[in-house]
């Protein structure tokens, strides 16, 4: 376009040079973020070829379950440290049988990428896709919502990577939506119901009318169904079940009708900030000071966590619930984990943190046992794997549905907490045999393992 050439530096050349410099600065700045995909014929998706193996930690950093997500991420980072032989090793020393040596996994240093699920299925899938497609993650783990966990598990199955579910409590995750590439250490709503039933019968008797407020998505439905079954089995009646939107914030419009419904028990099938809000409001509305049918009005929160208890404050005192793990447990594994987590972050871990930490260790151990990161190998090592020393006593990964079976804790909000973390007291440890069920009960099938290259 230029007709004459001149030796004087024109504005154009200066700008060109400037733009070039800028582009160079940008690329050199961003380059470390980018992993160049090597063109090679791998025998499975994202086979690690360098000195590191990348895991994808996909947790909610925003939304109703953000507190749990933040704690999960802390646990993942701690697990990576311990796997790489840094820190005090945590549960690596109590985990049996384990072939982990604290030198990474299969001689490769463990690296990780993180993502925000926003507690929304599409966002979670997009984030997991990025980890698989761009960062070459060989395993995805995380989630604090069953809806998200199921969506991401489906994605991992399609992509051909392993999914180690974090906190997901719906029966469906290892029930009708189970997948061969997915594994869950956390317990489920059926186990919660089965464990809570007898305890509730002992505490509140056989004649009760229950009113359910339920988070309107897969976990809430599952939780409500399980609680209905187990409470009706001990003779309770169900007055009404009401679905509430996730992240509603204000539950007063759902709590007011409870007052005049004739029910004497309120079952809150809520989790995270939703549970904190609904429970606090229910207590503020004076439900717990009420007498109905000549009985004290009671509130039950089937899935309880210490983080939620912390958020709800005094409202949780005396309230029954179930939990996967609590930091006050006195076995060697729990003590080692609490010590290590506390030293790192100055607070005890939540049950969400515990299950995520354990899942990472279990995955690493399975890879070490199989001698490969290929999904087929991992699935083979994990199916039917029996282990101990990870805080829940003897535990088994059932081969038929990739669900862990172990004892379940029934807890109660502590009336007189000694510290600000001492919020839940363990009322009963329900043995595994009482919460176990037939793997065909929940429907669904695993299908074939996807170990194809991507």
């Amino acid at each position, binding site marked *: 376009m230029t007709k004459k050439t001149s030796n004087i530096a024109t*504005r154009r050349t200066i700008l060109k040079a400037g733009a070039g410099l800028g582009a160079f600065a940008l690329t050199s700045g961003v380059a470390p973020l980018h992993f160049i995909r090597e063109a090679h014929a791998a025998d499975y998706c994202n086979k690690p070829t360098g000195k590191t193996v990348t895991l994808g930690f996909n947790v909610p950093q925003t939304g109703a379950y953000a507190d749990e997500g933040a704690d999960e991420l802390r646990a993942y980072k701690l697990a990576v440290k311990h796997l790489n032989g840094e820190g005090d090793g945590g549960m690596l020393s109590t985990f049996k049988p384990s072939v982990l040596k604290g030198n990474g996994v299969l001689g490769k240093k463990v690296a990780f990428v993180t993502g925000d699920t926003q507690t929304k299925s*599409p*966002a979670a899938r*997009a984030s997991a896709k990025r980890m698989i*497609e*761009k960062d070459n993650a060989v395993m995805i783990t995380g989630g604090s919502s069953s*809806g998200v966990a199921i969506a991401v598990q489906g994605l991992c199955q399609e992509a051909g990577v392993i999914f180690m579910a974090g906190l997901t409590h719906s029966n469906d995750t290892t029930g009708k939506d189970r997948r061969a590439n997915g594994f869950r250490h956390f317990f489920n709503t059926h186990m919660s119901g089965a464990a809570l039933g007898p305890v509730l019968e002992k505490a509140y008797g056989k004649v009760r009318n229950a009113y359910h407020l339920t988070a309107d998505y897969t976990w809430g439905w599952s939780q409500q169904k399980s609680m209905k079954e187990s409470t009706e089995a001990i003779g309770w009646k169900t007055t009404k079940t009401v679905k509430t939107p996730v992240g509603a914030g204000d539950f007063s419009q759902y709590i007011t009708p409870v007052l005049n419904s004739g029910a004497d028990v309120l079952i809150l099938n809520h989790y995270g900030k939703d549970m904190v809000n609904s429970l606090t409001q229910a207590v503020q509305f004076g439900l717990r000071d009420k007498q109905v049918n000549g009985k004290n009005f009671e509130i039950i929160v089937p899935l309880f966590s210490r983080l939620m208890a912390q958020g709800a404050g005094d409202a949780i005192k005396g309230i029954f619930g179930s939990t996967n793990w609590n930091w006050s447990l006195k076995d060697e594994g729990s003590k080692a984990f609490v010590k290590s987590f506390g030293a790192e972050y100055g607070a005890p871990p939540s049950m969400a943190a515990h299950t995520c930490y354990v899942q990472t260790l279990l995955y690493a151990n399975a890879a070490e046992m199989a001698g490969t990161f290929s999904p087929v190998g991992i699935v083979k090592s994990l199916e039917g794997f029996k282990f101990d020393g990870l805080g829940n006593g003897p535990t088994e990964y059932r081969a038929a549905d990739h669900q862990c079976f172990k004892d379940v804790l029934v807890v109660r909000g502590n009336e007189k907490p000694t510290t600000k973390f001492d919020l839940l007291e363990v009322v009963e440890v329900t043995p595994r045999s009482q919460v176990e069920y037939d793997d065909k009960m929940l429907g669904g099938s695993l299908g074939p393992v*996807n170990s194809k290259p991507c």
Partner: protein
Amino acid sequence: MFGNSVRGDWILLLVFSVVVLTLPITLAPIGAAYPDLLQKFAIFGLFAIGFNILFGLTGYLSFGHAAFLGVGSYASVWVFKLFTMDVLPAVMFSILIAGIFALVIGYVSLRRSGIYFSILTLAFAQMSYNLAYSVLTPLTNGETALQIRQLAPADRGPDYVLNLLDEDLRLVDQMFGVVEHGIPITNLFSLKMSGYPGFYFCAVLLIIGFFIAMRISRSNFGMMLRAIKSNQTRLNYTGINTRPYLLAAFVISGMYAGLAGASMAVTDPLAGAERMQWTASGEVVLMTILGGVGTLLGPVLGAAIIKYFENIFSSINTGILENLFSFLPSGLQEVFVVVVGMFVGSGWHLTLGLLFMIIVIFLPGGMMEGFARLFGLFRRNKNDPAAPAAASGEAATETSREQKTSGEG
């Protein structure tokens, strides 16, 4: 850049196509060349192009376009569930449904203009979102999102209760005897629509969409829409009924949104209500303004920038920053990590907000105005060396206006 000629348009289209199709290579150095993000570039580019037909040409600011996106997604997933995993029927059905939906909403909303129109569309979108989220759950599956499932058993008896949310039929596929292992993947004549093929599918849709938008923009119809933007009252006085034109523009842009929604379902067959949330509607407004309202290329550019920020900046964590600043002395490194850390990771919205403010304050015409100004500087310099180096504000608007009429893009 190109004259307002037919030849110039064809060159523009050709260049655009080449640029879009080579994105997997050209974006590799900035870490954006992976299928999921590329698909998003194309899909949201399409969404923004369609939105621009309404907002850019007529000046009617719709705050509810995400509703059409969501409707398109749901329509597609239902086609996948009921009939076939082939994507073409789903795409066509989605465009149709989104168009009908836009016709209804547009018919009501276009009775008002300006802020009232915006509020009406916002209200409709919010209503659609709430319906999808908690009222029409048998159609949308609420919070869990509508998903592809395994087939219902073939040998179901007469008293079998079919739950269409949890089991699929895929009648057409079954008629052709397609065997499914687990959950099937969307395909185009048995070409899998995940990963790069999915991107190229969306890219071709984007190019077609761009071409149509270009033709609309150059047509008499487009001229009429621009006339509405510049002075609707005068048009009314001259005896022209502007409503049909507006409604047509609204429906067309709604169909674009439906197509974008369908592409989302094609690349990831899962439709959730949050796609219809007002934040999603706001996002496309941001994209269009960031790139340049009323320009052809601007919205695509804006969409790409926002999606890049959302996916890349949000994934930068402190570990990566520590590596990045490892050349600095340790004290300084920590300061840099903390300060920059506020703008990346979960703070990426902050960066985007700043960028948006800078653009709106200094370049009201978006990125395209920035390019036009740069281009204008060179031309002025070449033609008349005595011209003042810094263009005054008035001159800049003049350049941008000149740019707009003389073939933006």
